[in-house]
């Protein structure tokens, strides 16, 4: 009893001690403007379910910020990154976004990997007229005036891919994806392209997010003998799918997996051997040969380790910070608000690692789609490169709806 009381006392004192740590009480000081610098928010999950990928976006964006600061900042002002960890939880995203946009008065926030987290941040972004820079490829069909979309939308990933796949492998497509809006939407768009080019869907299947047993899927693929496996499986599910596909000894030369989501990060987890021979469609691959990319990859590796990879989302997380910089440089330093930044960003071109990109008036980005084949070393060999920059059409699958500079227009 005595001992227990003592321990209880120690526990209470300990807790009280933690509660009254001076740093905790003075935390608000971080929010105050420190002189003349420009506060920007970084809202990428560093912990939780999607942290493996999302932390690489954080790393890339932070690297860009520090490169800009090292080169003298913008108008002589330093960028002050305010880092939050939303822990892969939408409610936490909403909470931290409020902090960054309302309390810390960031003029822009860079963040999010999943659509669910972007949607969680949208209400406060739109209400406070802030600017959210979202680097991920996504399903389109969104036309916010307060989000800068740096990733590909369905038409940018598929317009070239689908006819190419039909021509090279055949018209019979097997669709496998996770059960949420992104795969369904990509498949919706794929079906319109298939009907245009004379392809067909032999089977369409959705597994829960995080699903890792693909034996029944693989059995069905074996019995259906499709020409192309059109995959929109994400994260751990994709890793499991690729490994089991390889273990089942299905031949990529006969039945290749053509993925919209598989990047260098997933391939690193899958292993080069199992990933080799399959294809991905993306605007960027790590091995892409431009001076900008060489610089990006080298800086990234020397900073975070030689075994690290860059991929099509981290590239966007990186170039979006430079787009932000370019927009700010066009502005009068006394008049920097999220809205003026947005207006200045429209029409900007930038030499990104993937090529020269352009911000459309609908706030999506004109990109350079590519088709890559994975090699045993974990890198992709680019087989097809778009001859022209492709404009983003977030409502491509929906007749009569266009995302314009005035928002969504319905015919």
């Amino acid at each position, binding site marked *: 009893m005595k001992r227990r*009381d003592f*321990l*209880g006392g*120690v*526990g*209470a004192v*300990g*807790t009280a001690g*933690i*509660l009254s740590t001076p*740093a*905790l009480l003075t*935390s608000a000081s*971080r929010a105050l403007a420190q002189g003349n610098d420009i506060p920007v928010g970084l809202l990428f999950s*560093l*912990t939780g379910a999607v942290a493996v990928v999302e932390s690489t976006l954080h790393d890339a964006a932070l690297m860009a910020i520090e490169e800009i600061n090292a080169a003298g900042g913008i108008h002589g002002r330093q960028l002050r990154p305010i*880092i*939050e*960890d939303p*822990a892969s*939880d*939408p*409610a936490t995203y*909403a*909470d*931290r976004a*409020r*902090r960054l946009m*309302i*309390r810390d008065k960031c003029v822009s926030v860079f963040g999010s990997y999943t*659509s*669910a987290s972007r*949607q*969680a941040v*949208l*209400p*406060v972004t739109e209400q406070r007229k802030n600017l959210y820079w979202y680097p991920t490829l996504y399903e389109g*069909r969104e036309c916010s005036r307060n989000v800068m979309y740096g990733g590909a939308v369905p038409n940018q990933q598929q317009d070239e891919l689908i006819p190419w796949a039909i021509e090279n492998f055949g018209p019979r497509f097997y669709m496998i994806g996770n*059960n*949420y*809006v992104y795969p*369904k*939407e990509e498949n919706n768009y794929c079906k319109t392209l298939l009907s245009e080019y004379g392809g067909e869907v032999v089977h369409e299947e959705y597994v*829960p*997010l995080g699903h890792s047993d693909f034996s029944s899927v693989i059995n069905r693929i074996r019995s259906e003998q499709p020409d192309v496996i059109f995959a929109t499986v994400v994260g751990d599910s994709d890793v499991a799918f690729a490994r089991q596909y390889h273990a089942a000894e299905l031949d990529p030369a006969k039945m290749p997996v053509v993925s919209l989501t598989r990047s260098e990060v997933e391939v690193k987890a899958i292993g080069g051997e199992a990933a080799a021979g399959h294809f991905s469609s993306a605007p960027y691959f790590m091995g892409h040969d431009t001076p900008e990319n060489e610089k990006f990859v080298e800086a990234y590796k020397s900073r975070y380790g030689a075994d690290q990879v860059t991929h099509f989302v981290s590239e966007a997380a990186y170039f979006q910070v430079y787009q932000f910089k370019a927009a700010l440089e066009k502005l009068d330093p006394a008049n920097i608000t999220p809205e003026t930044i947005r207006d200045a960003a429209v029409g900007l071109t930038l030499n990104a690692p993937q090529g020269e990109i352009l911000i459309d008036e609908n706030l999506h980005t004109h990109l350079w789609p590519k088709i890559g084949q994975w090699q045993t070393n974990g890198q992709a060999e680019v087989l097809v490169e778009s001859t022209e920059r492709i404009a983003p059409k977030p409502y491509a699958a929906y007749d009569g709806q266009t995302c314009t500079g005035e928002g969504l227009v319905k015919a």
Partner: protein
Amino acid sequence: MTSRFHYDLVALVIFTVVIVFGVPALMNYDGFELNTFARYLALAIVSMALALSWGTAGLLNLGQAATFGMGSYAMAMHLKLRASNGLPDFMGWNNVPELPLIWMPFESLAFTLLAGLLIPAFVGGLIAIFMFRARIAGVFVAIITLAFLVAFQLLVIDQQGLTGGQNGLTGLAQLSLPGWTVDPYSMGFYYLVAGCLAVALAVGVYLTHSKFGLVLRAIREDADRTRFFGYNVATYQTAVFCISAALAGWAGMLYTMVLEFASPTYMGVSFSLAIVIWCAVGGRESVIAAAFGAIIVNMLEGRLSDVFVEGWHLMLGVIFVLVVMFMPRGIYGLLSELAAKLRRAGRQGNAASIDPSSKTQLETGQEQ
């Protein structure tokens, strides 16, 4: 009136005064801070709801988040219909041709408010009847409710055409009551949430000190014995489960209004376990302490994550381990032990007196 009831009433009044008058003043009436705190207060309601079933009746409901989520989706469905002309956007994306039947009544605010309370209560009641008629108790209650939670979340995620799937319900309107559009950053909204918490706590305090609460405590201590006294144990357990579920649904409705979206993560296992932690830190024996626990843990989480961007999760974990090891009855337990010690010290001169705490217990029983 027993002294314990007295203490709780005083605590309730102090607590209410602090959250209604103290906190806004402390926050400088700043919209952002008040919005953040309103979120904590909404979570305090679900924590006190758990204390009602766990602390009072000994029924550890690990599925509390499911009923919370039902309330939150009920409110979100209403606000989504208000925000969209005709068919909500995500239904179009999922090739749903017309508004499903189950969505239609949510056009009405009155129905929504009722549904946010009654649907969780009804579902909670169904599970409770199934469990308690079969005299399931102890850890099995936790397992069944947890299993229900997981199944329910999967169902919500799977029914994308009805629920928005993984993304949940987003793009909501602000609630408009007659003459008042509820802005989640306004003082009015803060008072609304604080008022709801105060009412929920008053209900909780009343219930725990009524005869109903006494029977529940008796069931917690020895269900068989209570049964032999002639009480229908299953009915009491079912009733407290329903009330707890309704309160959780209420909290869910407010939570949707604070965050302006509803997500299936509100029905996640980790969220449900977090509720248990808040309740345990505050002290599950008292509804006020449980509410306080939710507020203090969430504030701590907010502060820690603000200062230590990396490792705040870990620190929070260490604190929870310490609490469980050294304060198994939570802050409430610590305070009541302290009070008992003080009383004992004060009594040393007067050795003949009877232990007042045991006497109080008896009185509670006889009075009602």
